[in-house]
């Protein structure tokens, strides 16, 4: 049983990282209505930008570098939308075109990372952590900070969506873009802001993933991508709260299962849950019925 609670603690950490990533992906999907297959590489690039500021450029503390890396990734996402993805999405009606462009973008970004930082495994410059005993869990201080960041972010996203004008506009656009436009919502501006938020969350998720795993590699985001997809689909594509719930479910199951099976396969558990969801509730746990 002790082993179960240990794994449960790690599951909470994974769920926290996953929730940040899944919400970022879901926000963007809800507004633009196509999947960003380069999202995993957004995460990786964000983590490397943090790395650069943390180690060689300015030697900032990793948590301050993280803010910089995330915001920089947000700006990059806005630029990519402005000059690449947005034009493709507006010009071609079929979602295939923009999907294949994000797929290609993923390949380009991965190779940019390879060219600049190489294929070596790297790690942030941060003090070595001692493990804390909290109840039945064994966690480091960093993991606790990551969990706190995630919870705060989820609350902020919730408050933004429910109370601010921006959040209401976003929800309106996610329901029906044309109707939102005729109601006087500046859809271009909302799209830009959404890409900024999505990119920022991606950069943040990539960095905290690297912090919790203890190292960063160029392909880590890409391999994490299908776990994010699993969380998003299980929760119901396009639903923010579904993405949060899916992240908790997937994060906990993958880590807890690692206590019982070979941990090399723990991520594949996410895929099994994904398939089960598709078989029995294809629209996801929290999807609105018209989105199936």
């Amino acid at each position: 049983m002790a082993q179960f609670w240990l794994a449960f603690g790690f599951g909470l950490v994974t769920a926290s990282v996953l929730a940040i990533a899944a919400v970022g992906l879901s926000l963007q999907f809800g507004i633009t209505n196509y999947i960003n297959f380069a999202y995993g590489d957004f995460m990786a690039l964000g983590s490397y930008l943090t790395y650069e500021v943390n180690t060689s450029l300015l030697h900032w503390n990793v948590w301050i570098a993280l803010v910089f890396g995330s915001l920089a990734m947000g700006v990059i996402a806005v630029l990519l939308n402005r000059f690449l993805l947005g034009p493709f999405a507006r010009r071609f009606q079929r979602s295939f075109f923009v999907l294949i462009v994000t797929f290609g973008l993923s390949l380009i970004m991965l190779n940019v990372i390879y060219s600049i930082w190489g294929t070596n495994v790297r790690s942030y410059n941060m003090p070595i952590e001692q493990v804390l005993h909290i109840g039945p869990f064994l966690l480091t201080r960093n993991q606790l900070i990551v969990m706190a960041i995630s919870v705060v972010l989820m609350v902020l996203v919730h408050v933004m969506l429910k109370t601010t004008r921006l959040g209401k506009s976003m929800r309106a656009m996610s329901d029906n873009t044309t109707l939102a436009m005729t109601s006087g919502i500046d859809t271009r501006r909302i799209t830009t802001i959404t890409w900024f938020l999505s990119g920022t969350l991606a950069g943040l998720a990539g960095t905290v993933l690297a912090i919790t795993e203890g190292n960063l590699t160029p392909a880590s985001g890409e391999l994490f991508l299908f776990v994010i997809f699993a969380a998003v689909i299980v929760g119901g594509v396009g639903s923010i709260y579904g993405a949060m719930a899916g992240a908790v479910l997937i994060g906990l199951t993958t880590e807890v299962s690692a206590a019982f099976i070979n941990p090399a396969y723990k991520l594949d558990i996410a895929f099994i849950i994904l398939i089960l969801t598709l078989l029995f509730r294809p629209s996801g746990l929290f999807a609105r019925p018209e989105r199936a």
Partner: protein
Amino acid sequence: MSAFWYYVFTLVFFLFDYFILAMGLNIQYGETGILNFAYIGFVAIGAYMTGVAGMPNAGTSGQHYILGLNLPFPINLIIGGLSASALAFLVALITLRRLRTDYLAMVLISLSLVLYDISNNFIPLFNGADGLYNVPEPFASALKLTTNSFVPFFAGVAGVVALILWFFMSRITRSPLGRTLRAIRDDPTVASALGKGVFRYQLTSMLVGSFYAGVGGGLLIQFGGSFNPTAWLPGETFVIFAVIIVGGVGNNVGMLVGALVVETLLIHLPAFLPAIPGHPGLIEYIDTMVIGVVLMIMLWFRPQGIVPERVRRSKFLLPDFAPSGGGAVIAPTGPAIPTEEAAGAGPPFFIEEKDV
């Protein structure tokens, strides 16, 4: 044989092999509209299964793998193709009926990563991360081929296989089956309103396309003699999409052109460039970026590809009813072709243009 010809025949082999792979993806995406982002997974299954069907029992070799049937050349290749189709059957059964395009793409790309993860970690299946090696070279002992003479010989074998598969594929795309597939691609709802069982046709397309993927993979593993998980990360699927988009979606000749441009000129030719001193692998990274950029430029400026899909019209379509543009009931214009393309297709009636 000089090194030059060795390289030339290597390029020829990859041209034929990617022609086969592109035809398989083309019937799935180009003809039927299924966005198969797991395509390279089917290629890999075909490669592994061809390998283990042709290799002797694993007991003595130091590798771990299933089967080890020691079967001769064309039979192991067919087993590879059929295994890929079998996987496609399972995947299609679970996903095709339930998901719209982009969800399907998400699930399939996840599938591709999971297959990669499993084959990478589960050693008894296909020898884990090391992959299979010492895969027998077909006919090499019977014809007393050396490593040098095997390359042109097997390039020829790949050419023959490609020719046979091309013959069948052009029959399929010209047949009523091909027309139905294109109708489904252009509008599944209309196709099902006309009484076509959309799922059954999509399934057929998945099975045929995956068979091509498996055969292409099988040739790949026998040509190189080895195959491991790094050869089929999801990025490789993108390369095959690049082949069919650059060549011209929905056109079998376009697949050959696309394979020539993307696979031969953009991927394998730069591999012979000398490495930049102090930056190992940099050329390869830049090369991959170039492929991505070329594809985006191509999509923006010439989405129909180098060899566009031919507009097919029924001979029963009378001139009075002939539409000025494409988009008629019987004349699909394809996902990528602007309607004005149809204007150049000759007289608007009495032609059933032959595909090649």
